[in-house]
């Protein structure tokens, strides 16, 4: 049943996200006035073509998971449009949204936490079917077995509970659940972060196989740059609720444009002592500022090794500086902002973690 589908021949991308904002309000005072927001996602735009994998990388707290959840409207977005397969998910009525759900699914980070410990494997995988189909039990069970086959789970396990499985197997369960309704688009929210190295590869390979067979479109959220390099076609680097750089994979890894992307790549450990010894790493100082109180200018200005005055005052926009490469950084002036040809080197290094 899991046959390859012909890739849709459309000009418009399958996923189109425009200026997505996800603010979590802060209320304070006696009257619980709205006094501020945690700007978890603050104006993010990107698109994903059908059959493509977009990698979304960044450190914890940068808002990448929030993007994924807002995309599937697990959170109510504050602003922006999320067009999936022609419909603006951010504005669908609850009933329409429910009908839409089968097209978009999610694989979660923690395979332990995302599986109800009191449900058997077959009930977990079958849950979407219970919600969206009126199949007979037999038909459901057959389909569940098929799903289990396709993610490499022994049918014998159908009545076991999640705790009886290893992390990798659990993640396969999560993937099978996501596949149950033949989705077009899957948000993979750090699907391998909690797994052992040897198992990570199994899961990534599985995801790739499935994409090839089923023509799936992925948003692959991860903090593991090396895995993202392997799986993604294009990569978006997020920092503090905004996209710092969005580039095709090979371009990004060969020559990161944004100073943050550069620092992030240089921080990745090289599993070869020879290369490791030779590499020059950029060690960022301090921590990420609080998203409730981001810096006035560029979000990265507090840690940027190449910070300029303008960075502290003006937020850079995400602009296409090369073909297909989008960067939000004052180092790459647009024609409009080209007036100030500020020296690229920083006049003063402000590296303190802001602890406001």
């Amino acid at each position, binding site marked *: 049943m899991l046959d390859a589908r012909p890739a849709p021949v459309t000009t418009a991308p399958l996923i189109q996200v425009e200026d997505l904002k996800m603010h979590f309000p802060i209320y304070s005072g006696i009257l619980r006035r709205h006094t501020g927001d945690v700007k978890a996602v603050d104006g993010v735009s990107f698109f994903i073509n059908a059959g493509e994998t977009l990698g979304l990388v960044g*450190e*914890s707290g940068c808002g990448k998971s929030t993007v994924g959840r807002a995309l599937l409207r697990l959170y109510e977005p504050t602003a922006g449009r999320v067009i999936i397969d022609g419909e603006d998910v951010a504005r669908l009525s609850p009933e329409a949204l429910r009908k839409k759900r089968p097209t978009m699914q999610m694989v979660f980070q923690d395979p332990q936490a995302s599986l109800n410990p009191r449900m058997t494997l077959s009930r977990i995988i079958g849950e979407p079917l219970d919600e969206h189909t009126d199949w007979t039990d037999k038909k459901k069970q057959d389909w569940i077995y098929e799903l289990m086959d396709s993610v490499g789970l022994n049918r014998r396990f159908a009545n076991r509970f999640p705790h009886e499985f*290893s*992390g*990798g*197997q659990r993640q396969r369960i999560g993937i099978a659940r996501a596949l149950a309704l033949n989705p077009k688009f899957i948000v993979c929210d750090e699907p391998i972060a909690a797994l*052992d*190295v*040897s*198992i*990570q*590869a*199994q899961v*990534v*390979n599985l995801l*790739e196989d499935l994409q090839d067979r089923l023509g799936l479109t992925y948003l692959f959220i991860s*903090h593991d*740059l*090396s*895995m993202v*390099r*392997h799986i993604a076609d294009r990569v978006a680097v997020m920092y503090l609720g905004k996209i710092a750089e969005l580039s095709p994979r*090979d371009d990004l*890894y060969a020559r990161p444009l944004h100073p943050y992307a550069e*620092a*992030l*790549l*240089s*921080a*990745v*450990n*090289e*599993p*070869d*002592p*020879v*290369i*490791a*010894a030779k590499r020059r*790493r950029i*060690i*960022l*100082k301090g*921590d*990420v500022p609080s998203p409730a109180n981001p810096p006035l200018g560029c979000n990265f200005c507090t840690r940027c090794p190449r910070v300029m005055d303008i960075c502290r005052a003006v937020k850079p926009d995400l602009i296409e500086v090369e073909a297909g490469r989008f960067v939000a950084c004052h180092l790459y002036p647009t024609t409009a902002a080209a007036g100030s040809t500020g020296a690229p080197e920083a006049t003063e290094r402000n590296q*303190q*973690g802001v602890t406001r």
Partner: protein
Amino acid sequence: MADRALPVLEVKGLRTVFRTRGGEIHAVNDVSFHLERGELLGVVGESGSGKSVTMMSLIRLLPAPPADIRNGEVLLNGADLLKMTPEELRKVRGAKVGFVFQDPMTSLNPVFTIGNQIMEPLRAHMGMTKAEAETRAVELLDLVGIPDARKRLKAYPHQFSGGMRQRVMIAIALACDPDVLIADEPTTALDVTIQAQILELVKELRQKLGMAIIWITHDLGVIAGIADRVMVMYGGQVVEQAPVGELFANPQHPYTRALLKTVPKISGGREARLKVIEGQPPILTQALMACPFRNRCEYRHEACDKANPARRAIDGRPVGRGHDVACHWHAPAAQEVEHA
């Protein structure tokens, strides 16, 4: 390095068993190794390979029951930790052996100030007065790169970021100038940029303080950048042990090789498909009478099912001092599949 007089730590034939309702779990299976002064020994393995349990067994940190250390010797500067009374052992913990745990979010007590928690071992082991301990605590925080140290002594763990907390944990572990620092996946829970900061810090501290470190991790990338010598564990036992360069250049055990291949690289050519070690790690419900890796091994043959291979040296130096491996498989064949 092995030339120096006596290793600071010598572990011989350690066995640890967990007793559960479903039977015994043989978590650590006849593990022997040593640690030279000033050396950084990397311990690599998947979760469940016994690496953490081994290190916690050393200073008997595992709750007993269910943990039961069956066998072995743990000689710290010649004294057997396993034979010590609880009171003697207490004087070793935190004083001679420092410990840094994986999750800095839960490893600090949320209701006491950072200062309180740093000063605790100082006062317990060094008999410092409150004022002395405070001065030392400030020094330690400075040492691990926490700015504004004196003020932050009064802060609570939740007011620190993950990286900062791990620095605090390191400060606590270093408080009494230990001979050995055991770091159990200290960077796993951290972001790459923070991980890089911590690794940088440890390198720095090693130079300054010169203590011996055991660094447990599942990330070969971390080991490559920091360790002197690497010990690979699988199924509760040591399967390969070698100096770091040697191990990466000339891995002998099929598991080590597979492990090295599964890791995608950030630079160089991108594989079309990741190499995979099929199957799952073994469940150690009974003492192993066969090679623990045999079910996942590409080179499995009859011998693997018959006996659990002993560690043997492959470079002529005694086991543990040079490059050794626990595999029935013959070294020459290894050359055929030398990693690309």
